[in-house]
């Protein structure tokens, strides 16, 4: 659960943001990032539907590589 998923913001409406990662689109809350300057195109670390911090595109990519490996390992999990 603590792993979190990096996503990119595609639109913002108040505290709600539509975010995308690898073609999957989700509604994400920005309530925990009040006071931060957040823009469309930014990457955020999403945990149980809430963005907990902003991050760089580079950091998002390396986390995604890790998640891909984990998913592949889970699939072959007996």
């Amino acid at each position, binding site marked *: 659960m603590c792993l979190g998923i990096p996503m990119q913001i595609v639109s913002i409406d108040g505290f709600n943001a539509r975010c995308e990662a690898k073609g999957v689109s989700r509604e994400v809350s920005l*309530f925990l990032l009040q006071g931060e300057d957040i823009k469309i195109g930014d990457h955020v670390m999403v945990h149980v*539907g809430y963005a907990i911090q902003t991050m760089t595109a580079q950091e998002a990519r390396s986390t995604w590589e890790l998640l891909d490996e984990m998913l592949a390992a889970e699939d072959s999990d007996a």
Partner: protein
Amino acid sequence: MLEAKDWLARIHALNIEQPMRIMNVCGGHERSISMAGLRTALPKQVQLIAGPGCPVCVCPEEDVYQAIQLAVHAGVILVAFGDMLRVPVNVAKGALRSLEQAKAAGADVRPIASPREAVQIAQQNPERQVVFFAAGFETTMAPVAAMLLEGVPDNLSLLLSGRLTWPAVAMLLDSGEAGFNALVAPGHVATVMGPEEWSFVVEQHHMPAAVAGFTPVSLLAAMYSVLRQSLEDKCFLDNCYPELVKPGGNPAARRLLAKAFDVTDANWRGIGIIPASGYALAPAYAAHDARLRFPAYNDTERKRAGQMPPGCDCARVVLGRIDPDACKLYGTACTPKYPVGPCMVSDEGACRIWWSTGVRAAVHD
């Protein structure tokens, strides 16, 4: 940027003579370590210990029992993070022993992936009571706090089993037999709470510590840091996840946590009470406390209430006292398909992680 193999080369170049036991306290760390095979890649003097990093594993058995009772007898919609559904409680043979079994028997139990879904379900069912059984560490409790502060419908209440991570480490260090001599601190807990929370490891216990992210690169950087700190006898709290972990953490998240919850002494399954280690609803949110709304559904007189299942060594696994495969049931009576204890149920449980990354049962005589 350095790659994993560069960090490994650096670690192997260190002159490590004394055994080093590095503990992590995060299921995500343990999964990365196990999946990347870091245990075998490191010099043999370096041992990696999985510590208290699984909120599902330490969620009191009584709380799971109460959730099952609420779902079965109070007619509520019981929502919980998916991991909680398969956690077994100690009941007589034939009785419902998990939320999953309660669901199969017709109770309205729904797995959710976000607190926002709990609110939606409550809004869609205004005539029903909805109970959100919420277990988790700071990273999960901050979103739960956000959910509360944003406003929740009257028919939604919380069965809260939130825990703080650092007090369990403090408890181990204060016990005089910590069982580890360096700490890798959890990256996303520090993202929310700030790295400073972990300073006590260095300042009070003179133990090397480093906050790590979840990639092998970040984890190896943290391991290299604590090893060097130890060799040079210069401890400091290193931050090997600076992309997300800022001084002071996430101030909005901390503010919301402080508003929504009080910090209290709390029970950890199989371990006991750890001082100031749990979240309880602040008085302003008492109206949404499922324990107050449905007080009749707890039964502490029950046989084996609160304990681990018979034969399950989860408590010692959680504390890093033994490796998962040292449990006699590991891989024999207990597998992800037929889990005996919570450590084999949860994605963050060390038993589950070891099994799913290929550690097969050790031979016991």
